[in-house]
């Protein structure tokens, strides 16, 4: 422990430990017990079980409590009263490509966003070095952003 010193942030000790001279394995702090780490999530699992139970119960019970009056038109796809169009959608149909594009861009920017989180948590420990690094990172992704913008990837008709 004395090797690590006292810092204000969570990631501070990690950085210092990495920067410090090689430490003998025996002197390193033991890793956090995985059991206590996972134990934190037990209430979340309980809430999941309750929510899932409620939702599945509702879906399963619905056909039994409701009436059942057969009418073929009722089971057709709803298109405001007109005859349902031949399905262009299910099974290899087409849809606007812009949606795929948005999904791809989402992955790009979501990953950028997720990378910003660890930086934000440990920004104080990283100081100016970390700031320059993250600025370079944002600028690099910014090139992709500008490229997509110029190519019309963000336009919708």
């Amino acid at each position, binding site marked *: *422990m004395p090797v*690590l010193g006292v810092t*204000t*942030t969570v990631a501070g*000790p*990690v950085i210092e430990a990495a920067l410090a001279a090689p430490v003998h394995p025996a002197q390193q*702090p033991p890793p*956090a*017990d995985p059991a*206590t780490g996972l134990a*934190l*999530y037990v*209430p*979340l699992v309980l*809430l*999941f079980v*309750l*929510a*899932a139970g409620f*939702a599945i119960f*509702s*879906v399963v*019970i*619905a*056909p039994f*409590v*409701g*009436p*059942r009056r057969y009418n073929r038109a009722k*089971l*057709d*796809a*709803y*298109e405001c009263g007109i005859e349902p169009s031949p*399905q262009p*959608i*299910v099974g290899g149909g087409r849809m606007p490509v812009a949606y795929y594009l*948005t*999904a791809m861009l*989402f992955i790009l*920017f*979501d990953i950028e*966003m*997720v990378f*910003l*989180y660890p*930086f*934000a*948590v440990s*920004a*104080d420990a990283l*100081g*100016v070095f970390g700031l320059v690094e*993250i*600025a370079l990172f944002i600028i690099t992704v910014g090139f992709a952003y500008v490229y997509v*913008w110029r190519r019309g990837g*963000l*336009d*919708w*008709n």
Partner: protein
Amino acid sequence: MTRLAQGTPVQELLADDPLWLIIGKVIAIFALLVVMTLFMIWFERRVVARMQHRIGPNRVGPFGMLQSLADGLKLAFKEDIRPVLADKWVYFLAPVISTIPAFLAFAVIPMGPEVSIFGERTALQLVDLPVGVLVVLAVAAVGVYGIVLSGWSSGSPYPLLGSLRSAAQVISYEIAMGLAIVSVVLYSGTLSTAGIVEAQAHGWFFWLLPISFVIYMASMVGETNRAPFDLPEAESELVGGFHTEYSSLKFALFFLSEYINMVTVSALATTLFFGGWRAPWPLSAVGDGVLNTGWWPLLWFLGKTLFFLFVFIWLRGTLPRLRYDQFMRLGWKVLVPVALLWFLAVSTIRALRTTQGITSQQILIVGGILLVALLLVTFLLPDRAVRHEETELPVSGSDYPLPPPDLKVPRTPRVRRELGGRHHREGEGDSVPAAQDTGRTAIGSGPGRKEDGDGTP
């Protein structure tokens, strides 16, 4: 690592919760969310009704408060329809997938500090995870699956279009939301929601990060598909959006998850920007902060959350729906770059303050000079060129282009055929007055037609 292992004070407080208390909290959160949903549906109908000079539901229960409960019960006894083209399993699974994450996200929201329940000391929060904020974002992302799958599995065009729109919308605004939250994390130095509330003891992040707050507000409305961003269920275009083909309790589950998501993002806004469960300023000074202890904070928390929920309704009652391209432009071309630049600016200021010992006064002075310089530059910029289309195209009062007054309309083939012998070569380019000379109009107006009909043998 030391702090992760030991945990924050709230984590330690929660760590020794007995099982009965955890189960009690789980049930309490579940009940709170369901009751909030029922309340919100009634509240929304009443408030929107007042905004539109109507009365709203006022028959069932006092002030009509039980209306949404009655509606829910009625939905349970409606016929459960499964369209023939629907994919059976996914169709049943989609409402479940969209409901579960809606409930889960609320688990990390801190609703109050240390309290004593039946002699057991605990915090008014189910879990305080070291990655609390990320859990909310992750769970919100899973909720998109419910929407996409419901639209896909319905086997019907309107739900599919609605779900695609909805998914694109939610993921687009999730980026803006995440980038707005990053700034908060930067200042709190932790992802734990209880830690973020703790960091706001001496001032809400709303004052410190106003731009983040505005971006968060915009993206939280976009993320929950609420008016004016309710394009996935634009009635005039897509009937009901992704849940068009759903009925009975499955429809109710979608409704439930939408309202729970509203409550969750409002609670998250309270936690991130409005000081969480902390009493607002004049009250926080009362009696040496006594109103920040015990069960009082639950009141402030619910009050602040209700304020945000009211803003949702206010927006719905005030603003018209955006067009889809405008909406996506706002998300991708305004909110994302502004959020990124704001984050860069905030982290620069933060780094300068912590490492270079620059005071906030100096930063404010430099920032003010930069702002004035920027304003001067904008004054020097030339105005956007005025378009001169008006002179080229005569425009009617309602901006629709009118045909030019000297428009030459080519004659109909029939007129040309009848005139054929006499005006052999002139026929095609003949002007309108020439056509009137022969007793016919080129366009074939009413009287001309009649004459024409009489004249033909």
